[in-house]
């Protein structure tokens, strides 16, 4: 397995504040990787270190097999980057800006002509001849995605690429990212879970500077689903919930909108043995007992939504 990104023990502190805390991350080449986390979790800090804009306090950060802190500027010829709030020269037009960026990559004129035309079309800016200063935030975001692709990068780093887009714009960008699967490694940070579920193979969830979950989406949802039991009984659900809440393996019990009990368990084996006994003890009928299916949102909320923020 070759890795597009690898970080090991990556830590970044600002005075007493630990923005990133020993982050270990591996992103396979060709994958679409979603980097999830609430605001202030450290997503942008990590991207700044991946791009060499900031230096780690400690740890290793590698891109395409090269240590970012040791390598010269040439590694950046192989990556594309869109910051969370891209800054443009307001006096340029979109075409001028793309040509300017292309020249920074030393792209020959003929190739640049082709790519500029194609990317203006992708960004929906082909017929826009006004200066960037008059663009809406969505137009700037689309131009930002286009400039990140001007060099046909091996690795595309995007910080919140869909946050300023309307639903159509979001769909277009996500479709574009999907079309890159297998050819370009895409690493994008976001807090929009639906985007991640739609296009990503693998995700990492960051909370307060630490990676709290990392792996393929299916694996994450099934791993955390095992901790939740959905229970349906014929009657006395409230009494049964009280019985269950007193058990040492029950972290929480809630009655769902359909009357089913949603039980978060700390010991699945103990729960499987005890729940039927408790149901029988209440002389009620057992209709359904299974592990609940969690979506990525449930996983995200359970991992980062519990603590006081």
């Amino acid at each position, binding site marked *: 397995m070759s890795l597009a990104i690898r970080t090991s023990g990556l830590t970044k502190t600002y005075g007493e504040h630990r923005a990133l805390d020993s982050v270990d991350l591996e992103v396979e080449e060709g994958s679409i990787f979603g980097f999830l986390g609430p605001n202030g979790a450290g997503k942008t800090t990590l991207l*700044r270190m991946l*791009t*060499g*804009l*900031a*230096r780690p306090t400690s740890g290793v950060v590698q891109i395409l097999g090269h240590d970012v802190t040791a390598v*010269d*500027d*040439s590694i*950046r*010829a192989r*990556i594309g*980057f869109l*910051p969370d*709030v*891209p*800054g*443009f*020269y307001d*006096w340029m037009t979109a075409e001028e800006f793309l040509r*300017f*960026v292309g*020249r*920074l*990559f*030393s792209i020959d004129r003929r190739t640049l002509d082709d790519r500029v035309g194609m990317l203006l079309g992708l960004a929906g800016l082909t017929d826009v001849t006004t200066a960037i200063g008059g663009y809406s935030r969505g137009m700037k975001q689309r131009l930002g995605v286009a*400039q990140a692709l001007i060099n046909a990068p091996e690795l595309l780093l995007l910080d919140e690429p869909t946050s300023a887009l309307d639903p159509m714009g979001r769909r277009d960008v996500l479709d574009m990212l999907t079309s890159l699967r297998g050819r370009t490694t895409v690493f994008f940070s976001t807090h929009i879970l639906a985007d991640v579920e739609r296009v990503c193979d693998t995700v990492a969830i960051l909370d307060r500077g630490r990676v709290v979950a990392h792996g393929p989406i299916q694996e994450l949802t099934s791993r955390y689903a095992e901790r939740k039991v959905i229970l349906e009984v014929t009657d006395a659900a409230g009494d049964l919930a009280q019985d269950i809440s007193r058990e040492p393996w029950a972290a929480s019990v809630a009655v769902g909108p359909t009357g089913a009990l949603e039980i978060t368990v700390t010991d699945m084996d103990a729960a499987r043995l005890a729940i039927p006994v408790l149901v029988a003890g209440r002389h009620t009928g057992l209709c359904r007992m299974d592990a609940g299916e969690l979506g990525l949102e449930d996983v995200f909320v359970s991992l980062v939504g519990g603590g006081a923020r």
Partner: protein
Amino acid sequence: MRGFAAFARKEFLEIVRTWRLWVLPGIVLFFALTGPVMARFTPEILRAVAADQLGQFTLPDPTYADAYTGWIKNLSQIVLFALIIVYGGIVSSERRSGTAVLVLTKPVSRGAFILAKATVHSVFLAVLVVAGTLVTWGGTAIVFGEAPGGALWSASLAWLVFGILFVALMTLFSVLISPTAGAAGAGLGAYALVSIAALWTPLGTYSPAALTGVPTSLALGKSVETFWPVCTALLLAAALVALAVTAFKRKEL
């Protein structure tokens, strides 16, 4: 020096297509156009409005040298102060707006970023000084009927070296100090220090500080030491740019 040419081209276009085209050129050309006329008529204006206060004192008739010294005085004060204020944000404005992040995540070295700015704006200043000197020269010839070129051009070029030194200094200050006003304040403070340093004869003769007075002397046709002040100023300008590059490489964006 990856990306130098492409980024320098952007800097040039930015001058041509933004407010930068009007501010410094406007100031320079205004004083270049009005300087000879003001030099010619200022004594007459003074006699007209304050003759009773002049008493026995007689104002000398104006000469081309008055136009030349007026031009150098305007360069040394108003143009230099405008330059310091304009270039207080030469680097920091790109950091604040986020454009530096987009550029420096491309294969552009931070050295090329700084060097392109210092080079393009030094060339821009040179073009302005040459254009302003040409206008002053022509205006002086029209108003006074004589305008020897040597004194004017040597004085203007000596000041240009001083101006380039301040472009380099402001590049460094703009790397070190994020607020534009802070960098501009540091630039004005540096000018005050240089002016004071020039009072000490060794510094006032051989160091860049001499360039606070040398251009005026040259404009008056006096023979003064120019080699050492010009050489040390150019060397110091190169050192300041090198320092700006080093400091910028250490900055996190």
